[in-house]
């Protein structure tokens, strides 16, 4: 067993691009689910519109990076409005069904042959991140003990964690403001808030937009970090993973999604690497090497169930504060 290698890879991934993407997606979900009690199952859609907004602007419209970012953010806001207007007056599970459907609509549209000229069909769009990397101050990669990052990844990760820090700061400031107290009150008892004369619908809509925009930052990192956007990266699995990250870390806590993302990717890669080595050694014989990736989904599904049943507040959460049954 090459524990050094496995640990090194796990730490690298736990701090790497994927952890950043899921941290941002989960921070957005935290505003939706953790603070407001909105069941948004279309977070993948927010990441997708941002990533495609960026890529299409740069490749198809041939405009600079920052225009792409603006368009991506506007697309996320538009999506939030589109989702929120029909559903925010309804019960929570309606929002769940509509958001998951909307995310699928987006994925089916961008991968369609009909719109191939714009979105690139199932191949997606590639090679649009040159401008992003031209701003990089790093001239070499990073090698710090077991952690190895290439020159480009290092830049992505630095920008990514900066965005995570800023997002956390924003959420922290928002949630200790009067606005945040109304939002949390909506999670606990919507009718009580309504009886105090607050327009619950508008507050929910604002929360949906803010969470969606925070999630869309993850979409930008996803796009530039892998230098490509592909429709099937934005399938419902992404949303489910983000929920696992959020619930693991602790919904309704500022640092919950960040801790969740780091722990989640560390554990996932660690389990993956350990299993792969055990299979190669011949210690485990009932799994083939190509099935190792499937077994980690078992662990993912199982831990999502177990967390929700036995520890719904996650690592950081406070069970008393968080009424998960909020509608």
């Amino acid at each position, binding site marked *: 067993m090459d524990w050094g290698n496995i640990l090194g890879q796990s730490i690298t991934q736990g701090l790497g691009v994927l952890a950043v993407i899921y941290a941002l997606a989960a921070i957005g979900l935290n505003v939706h689910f953790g603070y407001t009690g909105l069941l948004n199952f279309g977070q993948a859609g927010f990441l997708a519109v941002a990533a495609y907004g960026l890529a299409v602007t740069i490749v198809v419209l041939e405009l600079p990076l920052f225009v792409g970012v603006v368009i991506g953010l506007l697309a996320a806001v538009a999506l939030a409005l589109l989702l929120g207007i029909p559903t925010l007056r309804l019960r929570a599970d309606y929002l769940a069904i509509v958001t998951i459907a909307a995310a699928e609509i987006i994925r089916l549209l961008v991968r369609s042959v009909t719109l191939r000229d714009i979105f690139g069909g199932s191949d997606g769009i590639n090679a649009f991140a040159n401008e992003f990397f031209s701003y990089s101050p790093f001239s070499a990669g990073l090698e710090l003990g077991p952690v190895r990052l290439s020159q480009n990844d290092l830049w992505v990760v630095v920008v990514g964690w900066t965005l995570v820090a800023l997002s956390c700061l924003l959420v922290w400031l928002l949630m200790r403001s009067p606005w945040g107290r109304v939002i949390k009150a909506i999670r606990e008892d919507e009718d009580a808030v309504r009886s105090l004369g607050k327009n619950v619908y508008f507050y929910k809509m604002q929360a949906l937009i803010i969470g969606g925009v925070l999630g869309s930052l993850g979409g930008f990192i996803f796009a530039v970090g892998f230098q490509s956007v592909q429709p099937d990266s934005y399938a419902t699995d992404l949303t489910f993973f983000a929920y696992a990250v959020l619930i693991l870390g602790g919904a309704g806590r500022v640092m919950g999604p960040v801790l969740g993302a780091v722990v989640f990717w560390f554990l996932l890669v660690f389990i993956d690497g350990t299993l792969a080595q055990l299979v190669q050694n011949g210690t485990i014989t009932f799994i083939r090497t190509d099935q190792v990736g499937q077994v980690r989904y078992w662990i993912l599904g199982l831990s999502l169930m177990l967390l929700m*049943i036995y520890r719904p507040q996650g690592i950081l959460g406070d069970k008393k504060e968080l009424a998960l049954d909020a509608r």
Partner: protein
Amino acid sequence: MRPRVASWLAAMAAAVLMLLGIGGVAAAAPAAGASGQVGGVSSLADTPLADDDSAVAATEVKGVVTDPNREPIAAVQLDVTNSEDVTDPSGTVIPAGEFTATVETKDDGTWAVPLPGGGRYSVTIDTGTLPEGIGLADPDQDTRTVNVLPEKSGTVLFRTADGENGGGTAGRSTLDRALQLTVDGLLFGLTIALAAIGLSLIFGTTGLTNFSHGELVTLGALTTYFFSSIVGLPFVLAAAVAVLVCGLLGGVQDKALWGRLRKRGTGVIAMLVVSIGFGILLRYVYLFFFGGNTRQFNAYAGQAGIQLGPVLVTPKSMVAAVVAVAFLLATAFWLLRTRSGKASRAISDNPALASASGIDVERVINRVWIYGAGLAALAGIIYSLNNGVNWFQGFQILLLTFAGVTLGGLGTAFGAIVGSLIVGVMIQVSTLVVPPELKNVGALLILIIILLIRPQGILGRRERVG
């Protein structure tokens, strides 16, 4: 902080042990499927019979290629290759992809390729050798995978259609096409309706939005595949057994997981997230044991259609439609005329009141789970008749099922039926104007629009939406 983490770890450890048991039960059928398959191939190849050539019946894959009017087509080329390691009678292992054979159809349209041993083979039809004006009904389905038992023959058929690029409806008048698509859509709608009833009834009685319902649909197809293609039962018997097994497993799932959660007082939102985790777990357990390929049932694969007026229907689809309607009528009878059916509706309306008036709520819910899971399994079987069996088929149609349920009104069984039929027909008929790859987009859009106009659905009642 520290005691909190410790208690969390302890709970995790205890829970892993407990829930592994549940996962094990629910996954038992596909687990048995895969081990049976592997065991069957190797053990049969090892029997003494295999050494005695004269006693061995030929292992082969065969089929017949016909045009849409069931006239045989000669001189069509097909390639056969093994998609997994197979063992020949002398015990030599042929690695996947090493065995290849090319064959042409004879004048009567038939073809056959002798195989070295039992296992999975993939058959590709060379569409360039089909006569002009004839293509595959589904151009993407030019390769099929077949599981051949040792000393048995496997059958592979390709559905052909008029028109080079398939899509059998091309070149016909719009009215004819609309009729054809409506009929196709009705069958698809019936399939969704079978899946939707369970989803809707479970939601009505327990409040659970079950995102793992699609896995019950998949399970039906997988168990049918197991009983028909691996155990070797006749297809209809295999399907019947599968529906029974899946119904019982649904009951077990409720007892072992959801019933306990209800008793613990877990909220409906928490249960929704649990169902997502459970769905992921089951899907990847299926993938692990079944593999990533789409496989056809040996029986009735690629059946030729019968022309009924302007509409082309395969006999298997007609039988499937009749069976689906029969089951839907039986469900309606159960809901309207039997004690437990009426009780289930009472629970949907008001669980506390139902319980107070002497209804054994948990028992009725368990029965709802059994029927719902059985119907979902039937939906999976019917869906697979035309689309093949794969590990995520239930998840693929889950959103459409939700669309049907929401359209009809969450929690009402009859609404689910009506909504599903509308969704099914609309998906198919919409291909008149939108490209087929986007047909599901239309259905999901309609779902969102319906929620804008009439959030309680067609048959739902206003106060349910809250």
